[in-house]
């Protein structure tokens, strides 16, 4: 291996590191010799990528295939308004090059899959997980355990975050913490539940701190501890994270020895070849036609009151999903109802609920108010 040194410009750039004995020239060279794979350049990935680049990590790999949209800008500070519509990986690389041109950046503009994960991850010293879904989290975990790479984990929801380090020198992994994912739909996503824009900054920088500490070999790692953060109470808590002897991938009797189908593992059905016509759904355009004809029906909006304040469909009646069981006695089982929410998930649940309660003329408006804005009335704001 060729000798790694710092140029005069780099010495000036990293001077605030170099004057700390805990980092010093030796530490800065460790950072420069290190390689980190960052999975995702979204909420968590944005601050991670910017600070890891600034810190002088020698080589950073980015995995992302998404495109910047307006709803990202509230928290994904690596992308700007001018980047809307661009691939996130391009926008992220541009920002990182501006912050620190001495960092080598690897582009992996792809989804991480069971087919490519081992091939991509094997070339890095450690992995930082900034993904946003359960299948990729289990995939990253399993690949890191199989390759014996530390996996710096962070996760966020609304006002709360979690962070730890998995698979450090045979330590506990994500499956030790949570052996299985929740079934789809039971745990709300950030798109449904929202997330405080600053939160991924806090959690992402805890991950960045752990990554830098691991490379420098200083301090006490979060491995074996699950850090919980609650922004509303402004409290950090710490829970013990033990290695599960029965863990199927890192326990004493391993049953998983290679990567599996993570979509299937997470209960997500593969796309059916033929689209199924669902009689319980109705297109927003048809709902508009029903309004125009003066049909006798009620459009029930099952979103929360604060969402109803953002935008609404004229003529809709607000009954938040959580209140529906209490309000059901005020509805007529023989009347026609169309249920609507933001994207069609919650109103689907409401439709199922009313059908089970004996309502026979209930349908779900497909795609929610987002689809209404796309297909019927573009003046209705999307959020």
């Amino acid at each position, binding site marked *: 291996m060729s000798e790694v040194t710092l140029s005069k410009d780099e010495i000036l750039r990293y001077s605030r590191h170099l004057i700390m004995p805990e980092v010093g020239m030796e530490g800065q060279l460790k950072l420069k010799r290190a390689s980190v794979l960052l999975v995702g350049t979204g909420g968590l990935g944005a601050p991670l990528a910017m600070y890891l680049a600034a810190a002088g990590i020698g080589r950073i790999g980015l995995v992302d295939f998404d495109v910047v949209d307006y709803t990202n800008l509230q928290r994904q500070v690596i992308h700007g308004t001018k980047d809307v519509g661009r691939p996130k990986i391009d926008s992220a690389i541009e920002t990182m090059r501006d912050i620190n041109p001495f960092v080598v950046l690897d582009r992996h503009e792809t989804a991480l899959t069971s087919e490519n994960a081992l091939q991509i991850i094997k070339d890095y010293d450690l992995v930082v997980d900034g993904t946003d879904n359960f299948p990729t989290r289990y995939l990253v975990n399993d690949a890191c355990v199989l390759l014996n790479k530390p996996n710096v984990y962070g996760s966020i*929801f609304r006002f709360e975050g979690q962070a730890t380090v998995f698979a450090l020198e045979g330590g506990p992994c994500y499956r030790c913490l949570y052996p299985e994912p929740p079934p789809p739909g039971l745990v709300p996503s950030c798109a449904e539940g929202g997330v405080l824009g600053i939160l991924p900054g806090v959690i992402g920088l805890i991950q960045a701190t752990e990554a830098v500490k691991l490379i420098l070999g200083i301090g006490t790692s979060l491995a074996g501890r699950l850090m919980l953060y609650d922004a509303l109470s402004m409290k950090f808590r710490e829970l013990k994270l033990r290695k599960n002897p029965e863990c199927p991938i890192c326990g004493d009797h391993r049953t998983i020895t290679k990567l599996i189908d993570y979509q299937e593992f997470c209960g997500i059905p593969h796309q059916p070849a033929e689209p199924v016509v669902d009689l319980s759904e109705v297109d927003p355009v048809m709902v508009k036609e029903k309004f125009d004809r003066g049909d006798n029906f009620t459009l029930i909006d099952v979103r929360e009151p604060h969402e109803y304040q953002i935008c609404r469909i004229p003529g809709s009646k607000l009954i938040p999903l959580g209140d529906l069981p209490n309000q059901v006695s005020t509805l007529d089982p023989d009347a026609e109802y169309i249920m609507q929410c933001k994207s069609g998930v919650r109103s689907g649940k409401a439709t199922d609920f009313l059908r089970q309660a004996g309502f026979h003329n209930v349908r779900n408006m497909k795609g929610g108010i987002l689809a209404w804005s796309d297909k019927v009335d573009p003046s209705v704001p999307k959020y």
Partner: protein
Amino acid sequence: MARILIPTPLRQFAEKQDSIELAGVTAGEILTGLTTRFPDLRKHLYNEEGKLRSFVNVYLNDEDIRYIGRESAAVAESDTLSIVPSIAGGRNV
């Protein structure tokens, strides 16, 4: 009375409360007290066989109850139980 902390995603099934005090001398008794008070929480904590779901962890202070006797873990007056569900962060797949 021991305190049990309810995480954000489950508060909607617990009258929006973030914690409540419950009587009980084991983790199982406290959890039963919780789901009796808020029946909507039951299906989020337990599977069809009545076992705690594998994506919901329960901690007695800072210890995972899976390693200290599960539902039979002894709870003292000053203890805090926490429910910690898995969260993915970001958007749905």
